[in-house]
């Protein structure tokens, strides 16, 4: 059974990390990152052509994680594959030992490095969760029995700070009804909004793993605000890092505070170090979650 699921269901505070597969076939750098972050985490999210930009497939990189003894969270976007391909990859993933999936709709191709690509979006993330739930129950989306079903722990994304909240909440509840058992959030800065989301999702029996970004430099803050979907670094946070004598250290201090605060609110933390993988152990340790 998935370690992630076990820990969450036991009420343990979980830690997940994020691994971007390479743009190419050389997995050595990815292995190094995994070796660094993996031992600290219950599971590692493996992104799926993140930012609508070309990377090795999540499924392939998940196998590297498994091989190294880490538990992957196989991310599936609806952008690049139709319902046949999504289902066949899910079958392959389960057969190969992957137990967690995170279903997302995916960034639009025009925001990535292949803006000429056709966005597939044959189904959306809510519909894909329903498909995976059916596969967990041993049938495909046409209702036909599978020769061996799946048993995935189903995850989805949510955005505690995105207003209007009623639209966000309704979509999240729709995802729970479709089969999502845990949620991973975009980076959260407003802890009251995080608490609001956790309370609402707990009422539906779902777990919430809250995101933390290491905002290492003024340039990264501007990049995040311009290019990452579903979050905005608030002005007071941006000011704090940009005006610090050493922005990098200020970012690490901020991340420590955020992880410690999330420890009191959510079921886990999802760490996105944006290249500062080497600082992850220190942040988790100082925040008291290791």
């Amino acid at each position, binding site marked *: 059974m998935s370690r992630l699921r076990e820990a969450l269901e036991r009420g343990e505070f979980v830690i997940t990390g994020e691994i971007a597969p390479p743009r190419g076939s050389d997995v050595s750098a990815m292995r190094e990152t995994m070796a660094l972050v993996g031992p600290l985490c219950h599971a590692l999210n493996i992104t799926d052509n993140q930012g609508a930009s070309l990377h090795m497939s999540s499924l392939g990189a998940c196998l590297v994680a498994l091989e190294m003894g880490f538990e992957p969270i196989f991310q599936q976007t*609806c952008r690049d594959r139709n319902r046949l391909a999504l289902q066949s990859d899910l079958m392959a993933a389960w057969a190969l030992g992957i137990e967690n999936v995170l279903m997302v709709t995916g960034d*639009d191709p*025009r925001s990535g490095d292949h803006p000429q690509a056709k*966005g597939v979006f044959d189904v959306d*993330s809510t*519909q894909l969760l329903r498909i995976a739930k059916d596969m967990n129950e041993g049938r495909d989306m046409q209702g036909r029995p599978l020769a061996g079903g799946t048993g995935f722990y189903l995850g989805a994304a949510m955005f505690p700070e995105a207003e*209007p909240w009623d639209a966000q909440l309704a*979509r999240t509840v729709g995802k729970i009804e*479709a089969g999502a058992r845990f949620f991973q959030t975009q980076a959260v800065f407003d802890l009251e909004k995080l608490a609001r989301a956790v309370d609402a999702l707990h009422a539906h029996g779902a777990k919430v793993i809250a995101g933390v970004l290491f905002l290492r430099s003024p340039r990264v803050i501007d990049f995040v605000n311009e290019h990452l979907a*579903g979050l905005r670094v608030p002005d007071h946070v941006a000011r704090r890092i940009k005006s610090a004598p050493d922005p990098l250290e200020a970012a690490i201090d901020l991340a420590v505070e955020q992880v410690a605060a999330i420890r009191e609110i959510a079921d886990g933390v999802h760490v996105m170090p944006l290249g500062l993988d080497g600082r992850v152990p220190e942040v988790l340790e100082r925040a008291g979650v290791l």
Partner: protein
Amino acid sequence: MIITKRREWQRVLDDLGSVEARRVFVVGCGECATAAHTGGEPEVAEACERLAASGFEVTGSCVPEVTCHAGGVRLETRKNAAAIQDADALVVLACGAGTQTVADAVAKPVFPGLESAFLGTTVRHGVFEERCQMCGECVLDATGGICPVTACPKGMLNGPCGGMWDGMCDVLDDRECVHVRIRARLAEQGRDVARTLPPKDHSKKLKPARLSVKEHRPDGSVR
């Protein structure tokens, strides 16, 4: 209506060059392309002038009432038979359906003078917005008369996606998120806002489509 836009003029010239045309007949459309200001009488006259300025001899022109109506176009081309006969090629200022209708009606090379853009609405004079994908399985009943297949850049049926922020779309950040709009309209009308729509049946939109009123019963079933 079908919204068209001008085709790059050099491409039109290159197309004519590809068959070494010197004499050209121009066809417009009295319906959508007239309303879109791309293929009505004024635009046909302008195209004739531009062709003449580029050294072509314009043998004539016409603007059929509806250029995607095969019968009407046959009639119109018969009326202009001599001028068309005299031409090496035709340029059609209409949508792709209109251009093909003309190409079926005459035994000459026929080239598109416009690009078909989308099926949309005139929101004000000269400004058009896409409204419908003609998906063959309308969801407007559940979405408050706002089409998410068209207005959501990802065509999601169940949104918003993770990019929505302050009610705005992430992909087209000058527009409201269509899923927030749908929700607001349904709520205003006291309707169910919590539905999750199932995946679309893309087999309803298999091409090439063909439809005959004779085969369709009043209840929507097919004979």
